[in-house]
């Protein structure tokens, strides 16, 4: 009997790897992908990047132009994420199995979360362009909607994870719904929620660049501008500043996480 379990597990693993290999080879054949050429062109790309895509002394002249753009992008991302978090908190409380008021609310808020999450950020940006044209508002709403979907889902899972043990205890003392939310659910899930919020801010600063390219605002627009002018030195300087900013934000949020968790 025991042997059967071990044999079965080994066969399952073998089957899984076989499937993986078939999928890989299958897609290589269908797309006519030349593996050798693929790998050799990586080195070519690196050589091109090394000889063209680096900032030089001359490109530093653009600093006064890109720094305000960078600031605008970072602040817009933070604003979009934090406002989305407030709405996500209400939706997740209504949607979570442990804190929902009734089934209908739960289905509605899960539906909203899933809808907003499954429409890609790029699609949001393009659609909102029609409404707000080229303005920071377009990027703000694109990030807001995508964050709302993701954060609602993450918050809901967090609330479900802290479980209903303490909720049951407070119900038994005669505490009301809002007592339980504010005295048990939120204190227990707040650190994890803040951690998700910080993660979302980091992701959104990266994504804001992409949205900026599409909507012609912020630091993304600067990159797009220099890139299309073949001013690779300036474009690479923009990229370096984005990377430094994201790393800084990550550093700060990691420290915050260490304190609260």
């Amino acid at each position, binding site marked *: 009997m025991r042997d059967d379990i071990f044999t079965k597990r080994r066969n399952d693993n073998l089957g899984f790897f076989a499937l993986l290999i078939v999928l890989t080879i299958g897609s290589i054949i269908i797309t006519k992908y030349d593996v050798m050429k693929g790998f050799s062109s990586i080195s070519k790309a690196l050589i091109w990047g090394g000889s063209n895509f680096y900032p030089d002394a001359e490109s530093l002249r653009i600093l006064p132009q890109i720094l305000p753009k960078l600031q605008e992008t970072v602040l817009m991302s933070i604003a979009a994420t934090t406002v989305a978090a407030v709405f996500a908190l209400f939706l997740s409380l209504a949607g979570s199995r442990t804190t929902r008021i009734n089934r209908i609310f739960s289905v509605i808020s899960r539906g909203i979360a899933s809808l907003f999450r499954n429409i890609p950020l790029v699609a949001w940006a393009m659609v909102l362009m029609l409404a707000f044209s080229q303005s920071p508002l377009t990027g703000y709403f694109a990030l807001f909607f995508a964050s709302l979907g993701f954060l609602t889902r993450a918050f809901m899972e967090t609330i479900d994870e802290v479980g209903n043990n303490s909720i049951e205890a*407070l119900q038994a003392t005669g505490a009301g719904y809002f007592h339980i939310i504010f*005295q048990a659910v939120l204190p227990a899930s707040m650190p994890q929620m803040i951690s998700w919020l910080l993660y979302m801010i980091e992701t959104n600063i990266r994504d804001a660049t992409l949205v900026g390219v599409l909507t012609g605002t912020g630091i993304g627009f600067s990159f797009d501008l220099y890139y299309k002018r073949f001013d690779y030195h300036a474009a690479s300087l923009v990229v370096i500043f984005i990377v430094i900013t994201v790393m800084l934000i990550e550093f700060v949020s990691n420290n915050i996480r260490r304190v609260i968790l």
Partner: protein
Amino acid sequence: MALLELKNITKYYNQVIPALDNVSFSVDVGEFVSIIGPSGAGKSTLLRCINRMVEANSGEISVDGVISSSLTKKKLRTLRTKIGMIFQHYNLVDRLTVIENVLHGRLGYKSTLAGVLGRYSQEEKKQALRIIRILGLEEQVYKRCDQLSGGQKQRVGIARALIQNPKIILCDEPIASLDPNASKIIMDHLRDISTEMGITVIVNLHQVEIALKYSDRIIGVNKGKVVFDGSPLELTAGQIQTIYGSESEDLIFDLGQRHAG
């Protein structure tokens, strides 16, 4: 008049087998009652029917002269303030301090706003400290509950129930996750609560010896039916076998240590 009276309580989780089958008994002020029986006999369901954490399908329960089954939501909350509850897994909010968890026991008496903001009166805080001292946790008052041992956590659970000024305390397997030492401390406290404060204590237990040692009265439950109801002195080896079914034939019970009453 009896403090707690159950009449013909029946509860179905599915249509076929009742979890509780026509259960009737009454309990007096200050009595220490143990409910024993095999796993799945309906002990937890029985306890939760008393404060309506589980709704019985039929029958009538009166607590302190109030018939609980017909109460509105608001009146039910008032009734629950008179019934403390202690859980196997303590059900505390781990990230909050001992005193905050203890004060949760007062939420049933609070308005929505006062409870949400966690505003407790000087008198309530003093009472909390008094109870914490009685239970020997004065050094842990401002510690977070995730830093406590199991026995300490359960004492916080007891303190949370006591600050409700309850007439009854329901204990669902209070020592099932504790070592013998901590178990003894918890059971001694529960015994004192019953003897000295005159609060009725109803305990679900796995351990027959502990039930014999501490209880004024034992109720044996099997398959949702009360099969024994009497003092520890009346409980014979044969009756233990009826309660636990054929599995108990090989079990050894030390019937020597009975509570003298």
